[in-house]
């Protein structure tokens, strides 16, 4: 396996600044550096919102029985952004929420690093919980991001959310 065939999908085409601007406008972006949740939360601030729910998906030190050393996420950025925008639009139709942002990180990640972040602000609490969970599930099901886990005791593997 050559590293070169994947290297383009380990980084985003835009700058981080452009990615945050996209997240603010469309509610979705890929990033290839540490996700700044402070910055994302600030984008969701709204005095009319009494509820803010956020989810962070972090790289665990194990998956099933295997000990994970690190992993790499690869993304198809242009499709991810188009699909992510539609997911956020649909979330705003389905739930009584004010703002929502989801970010997926790509590239090489270490244990504990945040791979996906979802934040939702709403007037009341239940729609924020419901929408955050739905956005996360939908991102995991639909966004073209792939994951390769590296273990200490066996070859790396391509993972799949579909089992």
């Amino acid at each position, binding site marked *: *396996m*050559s590293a*070169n*065939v*994947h290297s*383009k*999908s380990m980084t985003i085409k835009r700058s981080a600044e452009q990615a945050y601007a996209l997240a603010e406008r469309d509610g979705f972006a890929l990033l290839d550096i540490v996700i700044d949740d402070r910055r994302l939360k600030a984008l969701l601030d709204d005095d009319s919102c009494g509820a803010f729910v956020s989810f962070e*998906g972090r790289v665990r030190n194990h998956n099933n029985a295997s000990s994970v050393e690190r992993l790499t*996420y*690869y993304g*198809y950025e*242009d*499709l991810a952004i*188009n*699909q992510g925008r539609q997911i956020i639009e649909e979330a705003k139709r389905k739930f009584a929420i004010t703002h929502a942002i989801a970010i*997926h990180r790509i590239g090489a990640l270490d244990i504990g690093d945040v*791979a*996906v972040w979802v934040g939702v602000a709403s007037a009341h609490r239940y729609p924020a919980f419901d929408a955050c969970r739905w956005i*996360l599930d939908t*991102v*995991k*099901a*639909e*966004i*073209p*991001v*792939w*994951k*390769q886990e590296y273990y200490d005791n066996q070859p790396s593997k*391509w*993972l*799949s*959310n*579909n089992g």
Partner: protein
Amino acid sequence: MPIAAKDTDPVTDNTININVLYFASLADKANCNEESVTVSQSTSLTQLYEQLSEKHGFSHSPLELKVAINDYFAQWTDSIENGDNVVFITPVAGG
């Protein structure tokens, strides 16, 4: 319909040029992240995938894959046109 070289003229011989991107395990098998292929104008997405599977030894059934045209998810029954970007999407693993 065999895959022809890129420099074939699509206007005169009823073929179209398609740009295919590869990700994850398909990129491993194809040993590239992108290639331009020339196929007959009437080629369906399923036929395109079959041809590329034969060429690169892909093991996924099309039933396991999604397909995207020009950076949007598409139906397997959608037609492709000259200059389209096509991507076959293996099961994703985000989150």
